[in-house]
Protein backbone atom coordinates (compact mmCIF):
# COMPACT_ATOMS: atom_id res chain seq x y z
CA UNK A 1 0.00 0.00 0.00
CA UNK A 2 1.34 3.41 -0.92
CA UNK A 3 1.92 5.67 2.05
CA UNK A 4 0.40 9.09 1.72
CA UNK A 5 2.17 12.26 2.78
CA UNK A 6 0.38 14.89 4.82
CA UNK A 7 1.53 18.32 5.88
CA UNK A 8 0.64 18.49 9.56
CA UNK A 9 2.11 21.92 10.25
CA UNK A 10 4.30 24.59 8.76
CA UNK A 11 6.26 27.65 9.87
CA UNK A 12 7.98 30.24 7.71
CA UNK A 13 10.19 33.31 8.12
CA UNK A 14 10.09 35.46 5.01
CA UNK A 15 9.91 39.05 3.75
CA UNK A 16 6.27 38.87 4.84
CA UNK A 17 4.93 38.74 8.39
CA UNK A 18 4.62 34.98 8.17
CA UNK A 19 6.21 34.01 11.46
CA UNK A 20 4.46 33.76 14.78
CA UNK A 21 0.98 34.36 13.43
CA UNK A 22 -1.16 31.49 12.36
CA UNK A 23 -2.19 31.63 8.77
CA UNK A 24 -1.65 34.10 5.98
CA UNK A 25 -0.79 37.65 7.03
CA UNK A 26 -1.62 40.92 5.35
CA UNK A 27 1.04 41.04 2.67
CA UNK A 28 3.53 43.90 2.57
CA UNK A 29 3.80 46.13 -0.43
CA UNK A 30 7.43 47.04 -0.95
CA UNK A 31 7.37 50.07 -3.19
CA UNK A 32 10.96 50.60 -4.16
CA UNK A 33 13.26 47.71 -3.49
CA UNK A 34 16.25 46.05 -5.13
CA UNK A 35 15.87 42.94 -3.00
CA UNK A 36 13.69 41.45 -0.26
CA UNK A 37 14.97 40.53 3.19
CA UNK A 38 13.23 38.56 5.91
CA UNK A 39 11.20 40.06 8.71
CA UNK A 40 13.02 38.39 11.56
CA UNK A 41 11.59 37.38 14.95
CA UNK A 42 13.00 38.49 18.27
CA UNK A 43 15.35 35.57 18.67
CA UNK A 44 15.62 35.92 22.43
CA UNK A 45 11.97 34.88 22.64
CA UNK A 46 12.70 31.54 20.99
CA UNK A 47 16.37 30.68 21.40
CA UNK A 48 18.64 30.45 24.41
CA UNK A 49 21.24 33.21 23.86
CA UNK A 50 24.08 31.01 25.11
CA UNK A 51 23.14 28.08 22.89
CA UNK A 52 22.71 30.35 19.87
CA UNK A 53 25.83 32.47 20.42
CA UNK A 54 27.54 31.16 17.28
CA UNK A 55 24.52 31.04 15.06
CA UNK A 56 24.37 33.20 11.98
CA UNK A 57 21.17 34.90 10.96
CA UNK A 58 20.21 32.03 8.68
CA UNK A 59 20.83 29.37 11.31
CA UNK A 60 18.76 31.32 13.87
CA UNK A 61 15.91 31.67 11.40
CA UNK A 62 16.16 27.98 10.54
CA UNK A 63 16.11 26.80 14.14
CA UNK A 64 13.30 29.18 15.14
CA UNK A 65 11.18 28.13 12.22
CA UNK A 66 11.81 24.43 12.81
CA UNK A 67 11.02 24.60 16.52
CA UNK A 68 7.85 26.60 15.88
CA UNK A 69 6.73 24.11 13.23
CA UNK A 70 7.21 21.21 15.65
CA UNK A 71 5.35 23.07 18.40
CA UNK A 72 2.38 23.65 16.11
CA UNK A 73 2.32 19.96 15.26
CA UNK A 74 2.60 18.94 18.90
CA UNK A 75 5.73 16.90 18.16
CA UNK A 76 8.69 17.09 20.55
CA UNK A 77 11.30 15.25 18.53
CA UNK A 78 10.86 14.25 14.86
CA UNK A 79 12.21 10.97 13.52
CA UNK A 80 14.13 12.66 10.74
CA UNK A 81 15.40 16.16 9.92
CA UNK A 82 15.90 16.87 6.22
CA UNK A 83 16.85 20.24 4.78
CA UNK A 84 17.55 21.82 1.44
CA UNK A 85 19.52 24.97 0.71
CA UNK A 86 20.98 26.31 -2.51
CA UNK A 87 23.87 28.31 -1.13
CA UNK A 88 23.94 27.28 2.50
CA UNK A 89 25.36 29.53 5.17
CA UNK A 90 26.83 32.06 2.80
CA UNK A 91 27.33 34.78 5.43
CA UNK A 92 29.73 32.63 7.43
CA UNK A 93 31.39 31.37 4.26
CA UNK A 94 32.10 34.97 3.27
CA UNK A 95 33.26 35.85 6.77
CA UNK A 96 35.79 33.04 6.95
CA UNK A 97 36.95 33.38 3.36
CA UNK A 98 37.34 37.11 3.83
CA UNK A 99 39.45 36.57 6.94
CA UNK A 100 41.72 34.18 5.03
CA UNK A 101 42.70 37.09 2.80
CA UNK A 102 42.56 40.07 5.17
CA UNK A 103 44.54 38.25 7.84
CA UNK A 104 46.81 36.50 5.34
CA UNK A 105 45.87 33.08 6.71
CA UNK A 106 47.03 33.93 10.21
CA UNK A 107 45.14 33.71 13.50
CA UNK A 108 41.80 32.90 11.93
CA UNK A 109 38.70 32.54 14.07
CA UNK A 110 37.35 29.01 13.56
CA UNK A 111 33.71 29.80 14.32
CA UNK A 112 32.65 31.06 10.88
CA UNK A 113 34.34 28.08 9.26
CA UNK A 114 32.44 25.50 11.26
CA UNK A 115 29.22 27.45 10.85
CA UNK A 116 29.66 27.67 7.07
CA UNK A 117 28.96 24.02 6.27
CA UNK A 118 25.61 23.59 4.50
CA UNK A 119 24.30 21.14 7.07
CA UNK A 120 24.74 23.57 9.97
CA UNK A 121 21.01 24.32 10.24
CA UNK A 122 19.99 20.65 10.23
CA UNK A 123 22.70 19.91 12.78
CA UNK A 124 21.71 22.86 14.99
CA UNK A 125 18.09 21.69 15.05
CA UNK A 126 19.18 18.16 15.98
CA UNK A 127 21.45 19.55 18.69
CA UNK A 128 18.70 21.73 20.13
CA UNK A 129 16.30 18.79 20.30
CA UNK A 130 18.81 16.01 21.00
CA UNK A 131 17.40 14.33 17.92
CA UNK A 132 19.54 11.32 16.98
CA UNK A 133 17.52 10.35 13.94
CA UNK A 134 18.21 10.54 10.22
CA UNK A 135 19.69 13.90 9.24
CA UNK A 136 20.33 15.05 5.67
CA UNK A 137 21.01 18.24 3.73
CA UNK A 138 20.60 18.72 0.00
CA UNK A 139 22.19 21.53 -1.91
CA UNK A 140 21.39 21.62 -5.58
CA UNK A 141 20.09 24.92 -6.84
CA UNK A 142 16.37 24.74 -7.66
CA UNK A 143 16.25 21.07 -6.60
CA UNK A 144 17.56 21.61 -3.05
CA UNK A 145 14.20 21.81 -1.31
CA UNK A 146 12.64 19.34 -3.74
CA UNK A 147 15.15 16.65 -2.85
CA UNK A 148 14.53 17.29 0.83
CA UNK A 149 10.83 16.71 0.20
CA UNK A 150 11.48 13.65 -1.97
CA UNK A 151 13.65 12.17 0.77
CA UNK A 152 10.97 12.98 3.36
CA UNK A 153 8.36 11.18 1.27
CA UNK A 154 10.73 8.24 0.94
CA UNK A 155 11.18 8.20 4.73
CA UNK A 156 7.42 7.99 5.17
CA UNK A 157 7.20 5.18 2.62
CA UNK A 158 9.86 3.28 4.58
CA UNK A 159 8.43 4.18 8.01
CA UNK A 160 4.77 5.18 7.70
CA UNK A 161 4.43 5.87 11.41
CA UNK A 162 7.23 8.43 11.50
CA UNK A 163 7.17 12.22 11.69
CA UNK A 164 9.56 13.95 9.34
CA UNK A 165 10.69 17.56 9.64
CA UNK A 166 11.63 18.98 6.23
CA UNK A 167 12.68 22.52 5.39
CA UNK A 168 14.12 24.84 2.77
CA UNK A 169 16.08 28.05 3.27
CA UNK A 170 18.46 30.49 1.67
CA UNK A 171 19.85 33.85 2.72
CA UNK A 172 20.85 36.96 0.81
CA UNK A 173 23.92 38.86 1.95
CA UNK A 174 25.14 42.15 0.57
CA UNK A 175 28.10 40.38 -1.04
CA UNK A 176 26.04 37.60 -2.57
CA UNK A 177 23.64 40.24 -3.88
CA UNK A 178 26.50 42.24 -5.41
CA UNK A 179 27.98 39.16 -7.07
CA UNK A 180 24.70 37.79 -8.44
CA UNK A 181 23.76 41.27 -9.62
CA UNK A 182 26.97 41.36 -11.63
CA UNK A 183 26.00 37.95 -13.04
CA UNK A 184 22.92 39.68 -14.48
CA UNK A 185 20.29 37.78 -12.52
CA UNK A 186 18.39 40.73 -11.11
CA UNK A 187 16.46 43.82 -12.09
CA UNK A 188 18.80 46.78 -12.31
CA UNK A 189 16.27 49.35 -11.04
CA UNK A 190 14.17 49.28 -7.87
CA UNK A 191 10.74 47.68 -8.20
CA UNK A 192 7.32 47.81 -6.59
CA UNK A 193 6.65 44.21 -5.54
CA UNK A 194 2.93 44.28 -6.28
CA UNK A 195 3.67 45.47 -9.81
CA UNK A 196 6.70 43.20 -10.39
CA UNK A 197 4.90 40.54 -12.36
CA UNK A 198 3.04 43.05 -14.53
CA UNK A 199 5.84 45.43 -15.42
CA UNK A 200 7.84 43.42 -17.95
CA UNK A 201 11.55 43.52 -17.35
CA UNK A 202 14.80 41.65 -17.53
CA UNK A 203 15.89 39.94 -14.35
CA UNK A 204 14.11 38.91 -11.19
CA UNK A 205 13.85 40.36 -7.69
CA UNK A 206 16.13 38.54 -5.26
CA UNK A 207 14.84 37.43 -1.89
CA UNK A 208 15.38 34.96 0.91
CA UNK A 209 13.42 32.86 3.35
CA UNK A 210 12.99 29.82 5.53
CA UNK A 211 10.10 27.37 5.64
CA UNK A 212 9.70 24.14 7.59
CA UNK A 213 7.09 21.41 7.40
CA UNK A 214 6.14 18.55 9.68
CA UNK A 215 5.18 15.65 7.44
CA UNK A 216 3.31 12.57 8.50
CA UNK A 217 1.74 9.49 6.93
CA UNK A 218 -1.28 9.63 9.23
CA UNK A 219 -4.50 11.10 7.82
CA UNK A 220 -6.52 13.37 10.09
CA UNK A 221 -8.42 16.63 10.43
CA UNK A 222 -5.45 18.28 12.09
CA UNK A 223 -3.48 18.05 8.82
CA UNK A 224 -3.29 21.12 6.60
CA UNK A 225 -3.07 19.38 3.25
CA UNK A 226 -2.06 16.18 1.52
CA UNK A 227 1.02 16.19 -0.69
CA UNK A 228 -0.07 13.92 -3.52
CA UNK A 229 2.97 14.07 -5.74
CA UNK A 230 6.20 15.85 -6.47
CA UNK A 231 8.37 15.73 -9.58
CA UNK A 232 11.47 17.44 -10.90
CA UNK A 233 12.93 17.70 -14.37
CA UNK A 234 16.16 19.18 -15.66
CA UNK A 235 16.92 21.30 -18.73
CA UNK A 236 13.79 20.67 -20.79
CA UNK A 237 14.03 21.63 -24.46
CA UNK A 238 11.33 24.32 -24.34
CA UNK A 239 7.71 25.17 -23.51
CA UNK A 240 6.29 22.13 -25.26
CA UNK A 241 8.58 19.78 -23.35
CA UNK A 242 7.58 21.50 -20.09
CA UNK A 243 3.92 21.17 -21.01
CA UNK A 244 4.40 17.46 -21.63
CA UNK A 245 5.98 17.06 -18.19
CA UNK A 246 3.10 18.97 -16.60
CA UNK A 247 0.45 16.91 -18.34
CA UNK A 248 2.25 13.66 -17.54
CA UNK A 249 2.53 14.68 -13.90
CA UNK A 250 -1.18 15.45 -13.61
CA UNK A 251 -2.25 12.23 -15.32
CA UNK A 252 0.13 10.10 -13.26
CA UNK A 253 -1.67 11.47 -10.19
CA UNK A 254 -4.92 10.12 -11.64
CA UNK A 255 -6.28 13.51 -12.68
CA UNK A 256 -7.09 15.47 -15.82
CA UNK A 257 -5.82 19.03 -16.43
CA UNK A 258 -9.40 20.20 -15.97
CA UNK A 259 -9.43 18.86 -12.39
CA UNK A 260 -6.79 21.35 -11.18
CA UNK A 261 -8.36 24.27 -9.23
CA UNK A 262 -5.32 26.52 -8.95
CA UNK A 263 -1.82 26.63 -10.42
CA UNK A 264 0.74 28.43 -8.26
CA UNK A 265 3.50 29.62 -10.60
CA UNK A 266 7.10 30.65 -9.90
CA UNK A 267 6.79 33.81 -12.00
CA UNK A 268 9.59 36.09 -10.91
CA UNK A 269 9.35 39.15 -13.15
CA UNK A 270 12.04 38.09 -15.63
CA UNK A 271 10.16 38.32 -18.89
CA UNK A 272 11.92 35.53 -20.81
CA UNK A 273 11.86 33.07 -17.91
CA UNK A 274 8.24 33.85 -17.17
CA UNK A 275 7.20 33.23 -20.78
CA UNK A 276 8.04 29.56 -20.28
CA UNK A 277 5.17 29.19 -17.80
CA UNK A 278 2.44 30.32 -20.18
CA UNK A 279 3.84 28.12 -22.95
CA UNK A 280 3.93 25.13 -20.63
CA UNK A 281 0.39 25.70 -19.38
CA UNK A 282 -0.86 26.02 -22.94
CA UNK A 283 0.80 22.78 -24.04
CA UNK A 284 -0.52 20.98 -20.98
CA UNK A 285 -4.04 22.12 -21.64
CA UNK A 286 -4.25 23.87 -18.25
CA UNK A 287 -6.80 26.66 -18.33
CA UNK A 288 -7.50 27.32 -14.70
CA UNK A 289 -7.02 29.93 -11.96
CA UNK A 290 -3.47 31.12 -11.61
CA UNK A 291 -1.50 32.45 -8.65
CA UNK A 292 2.05 33.64 -8.00
CA UNK A 293 4.31 33.95 -4.96
CA UNK A 294 7.71 35.37 -5.84
CA UNK A 295 6.50 38.96 -5.69
CA UNK A 296 6.09 38.22 -1.96
CA UNK A 297 9.30 36.35 -1.17
CA UNK A 298 11.65 37.13 -4.05
CA UNK A 299 13.73 34.69 -6.08
CA UNK A 300 16.08 32.24 -4.37
CA UNK A 301 16.98 28.59 -4.87
CA UNK A 302 14.53 27.29 -2.26
CA UNK A 303 11.64 29.71 -2.98
CA UNK A 304 9.32 26.74 -3.58
CA UNK A 305 9.39 26.20 0.18
CA UNK A 306 7.56 29.54 0.47
CA UNK A 307 5.15 28.41 -2.25
CA UNK A 308 4.48 25.20 -0.32
CA UNK A 309 3.89 27.13 2.90
CA UNK A 310 1.48 29.45 1.10
CA UNK A 311 -0.34 26.62 -0.67
CA UNK A 312 -0.76 24.61 2.53
CA UNK A 313 -2.23 27.66 4.24
CA UNK A 314 -4.57 28.31 1.30
CA UNK A 315 -5.84 24.72 1.39
CA UNK A 316 -6.29 24.86 5.14
CA UNK A 317 -8.48 27.96 4.94
CA UNK A 318 -9.90 27.35 1.47
CA UNK A 319 -9.38 30.98 0.46
CA UNK A 320 -6.91 32.48 -2.04
CA UNK A 321 -5.68 35.95 -0.97
CA UNK A 322 -6.26 38.57 -3.67
CA UNK A 323 -2.57 39.56 -3.72
CA UNK A 324 -1.66 35.98 -4.61
CA UNK A 325 -4.28 35.40 -7.25
CA UNK A 326 -3.62 36.46 -10.82
CA UNK A 327 -7.07 37.32 -11.98
CA UNK A 328 -10.27 37.07 -9.94
CA UNK A 329 -9.77 34.89 -6.87
CA UNK A 330 -11.43 31.45 -7.26
CA UNK A 331 -14.33 30.51 -4.99
CA UNK A 332 -13.03 27.42 -3.31
CA UNK A 333 -9.78 25.59 -3.80
CA UNK A 334 -9.58 21.84 -3.27
CA UNK A 335 -6.21 21.26 -4.95
CA UNK A 336 -3.17 23.27 -5.98
CA UNK A 337 -0.50 22.51 -8.55
CA UNK A 338 2.78 24.33 -7.89
CA UNK A 339 5.05 24.80 -10.88
CA UNK A 340 8.40 26.51 -10.49
CA UNK A 341 11.58 26.73 -12.50
CA UNK A 342 14.93 28.25 -11.63
CA UNK A 343 16.34 30.08 -14.66
CA UNK A 344 14.97 27.43 -17.01
CA UNK A 345 17.18 24.62 -15.68
CA UNK A 346 15.58 23.20 -12.56
CA UNK A 347 11.85 22.57 -12.86
CA UNK A 348 9.69 21.42 -9.98
CA UNK A 349 6.06 20.32 -9.70
CA UNK A 350 3.98 19.72 -6.58
CA UNK A 351 0.40 18.56 -6.30
CA UNK A 352 -1.44 19.24 -3.06
CA UNK A 353 -4.99 18.61 -2.07
CA UNK A 354 -7.17 19.63 0.86
Amino acid at each position, binding site marked *: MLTETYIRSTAAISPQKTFGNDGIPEFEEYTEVNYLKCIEPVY*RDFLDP*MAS*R*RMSRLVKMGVCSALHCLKKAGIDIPDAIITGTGLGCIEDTEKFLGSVFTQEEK*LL*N*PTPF*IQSTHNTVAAAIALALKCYGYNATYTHRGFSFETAMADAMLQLAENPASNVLAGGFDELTSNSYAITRRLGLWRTHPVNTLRLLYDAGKGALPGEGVAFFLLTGKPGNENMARLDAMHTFYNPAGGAACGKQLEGFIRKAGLEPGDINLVMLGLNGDVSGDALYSEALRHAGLRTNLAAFKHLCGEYDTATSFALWLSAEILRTGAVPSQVSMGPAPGSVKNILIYNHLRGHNHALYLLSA
Partner: protein
Amino acid sequence: MEQLIAQLKHEIIEVLNLTELTPDSIDENAPLFVEGLGLDSIDALELIVLLEKKYGLKLGTADEGKKILYSVRTMAEFIRNNNKG
Protein backbone atom coordinates in the same frame (compact mmCIF):
# COMPACT_ATOMS: atom_id res chain seq x y z
CA MET B 1 45.48 43.50 37.48
CA GLU B 2 41.86 44.38 38.09
CA GLN B 3 41.89 46.57 35.00
CA LEU B 4 43.27 43.72 32.93
CA ILE B 5 40.59 41.40 34.28
CA ALA B 6 37.86 43.91 33.41
CA GLN B 7 39.29 44.35 29.91
CA LEU B 8 39.55 40.60 29.41
CA LYS B 9 35.92 40.16 30.36
CA HIS B 10 34.88 42.64 27.68
CA GLU B 11 37.06 40.89 25.12
CA ILE B 12 35.74 37.43 26.02
CA ILE B 13 32.16 38.62 25.70
CA GLU B 14 32.94 40.14 22.32
CA VAL B 15 34.95 37.29 20.85
CA LEU B 16 32.52 34.59 22.00
CA ASN B 17 29.42 36.65 21.21
CA LEU B 18 28.02 36.28 24.74
CA THR B 19 25.51 39.02 24.02
CA GLU B 20 23.36 38.49 27.10
CA LEU B 21 26.25 38.73 29.54
CA THR B 22 27.77 41.82 31.11
CA PRO B 23 31.30 41.93 32.54
CA ASP B 24 29.73 42.16 36.01
CA SER B 25 27.95 38.86 35.53
CA ILE B 26 31.22 36.98 34.91
CA ASP B 27 32.98 35.76 38.04
CA GLU B 28 36.69 35.99 37.27
CA ASN B 29 37.48 33.12 39.63
CA ALA B 30 34.82 30.72 38.31
CA PRO B 31 35.73 28.02 35.78
CA LEU B 32 35.12 29.00 32.17
CA PHE B 33 34.70 25.46 30.84
CA VAL B 34 32.34 22.59 31.64
CA GLU B 35 30.88 24.37 34.66
CA GLY B 36 30.68 28.12 35.26
CA LEU B 37 30.13 29.72 31.86
CA GLY B 38 30.00 26.27 30.28
CA LEU B 39 32.19 27.09 27.30
CA ASP B 40 33.26 24.38 24.86
CA SER B 41 36.16 23.38 22.62
CA ILE B 42 35.40 25.94 19.92
CA ASP B 43 35.35 28.70 22.53
CA ALA B 44 38.74 27.46 23.70
CA LEU B 45 40.11 27.86 20.19
CA GLU B 46 38.67 31.37 19.98
CA LEU B 47 40.30 32.30 23.28
CA ILE B 48 43.63 30.93 22.06
CA VAL B 49 43.28 33.17 19.00
CA LEU B 50 42.42 36.12 21.25
CA LEU B 51 45.51 35.61 23.41
CA GLU B 52 47.76 35.50 20.40
CA LYS B 53 46.11 38.27 18.42
CA LYS B 54 45.65 40.78 21.20
CA TYR B 55 48.47 39.87 23.58
CA GLY B 56 50.96 38.14 21.30
CA LEU B 57 50.99 35.06 23.50
CA LYS B 58 51.09 31.50 22.23
CA LEU B 59 49.93 28.59 24.33
CA GLY B 60 52.26 25.63 24.61
CA THR B 61 50.80 22.18 25.20
CA ALA B 62 47.13 21.31 25.48
CA ASP B 63 47.58 20.67 29.22
CA GLU B 64 49.21 24.05 29.67
CA GLY B 65 46.36 25.59 27.71
CA LYS B 66 43.81 23.97 30.02
CA LYS B 67 45.44 25.56 33.07
CA ILE B 68 45.72 29.00 31.52
CA LEU B 69 42.16 29.05 30.22
CA TYR B 70 40.72 27.77 33.50
CA SER B 71 39.26 31.15 34.53
CA VAL B 72 39.45 34.83 33.65
CA ARG B 73 41.89 35.28 36.52
CA THR B 74 44.25 32.54 35.33
CA MET B 75 44.17 34.06 31.86
CA ALA B 76 45.00 37.49 33.31
CA GLU B 77 47.82 36.04 35.39
CA PHE B 78 49.28 34.36 32.31
CA ILE B 79 49.20 37.67 30.46
CA ARG B 80 50.69 39.57 33.39
CA ASN B 81 53.42 36.95 33.97
CA ASN B 82 54.48 37.35 30.37
CA ASN B 83 54.56 41.13 30.74
CA LYS B 84 51.95 41.68 28.13
CA GLY B 85 49.19 43.36 30.07
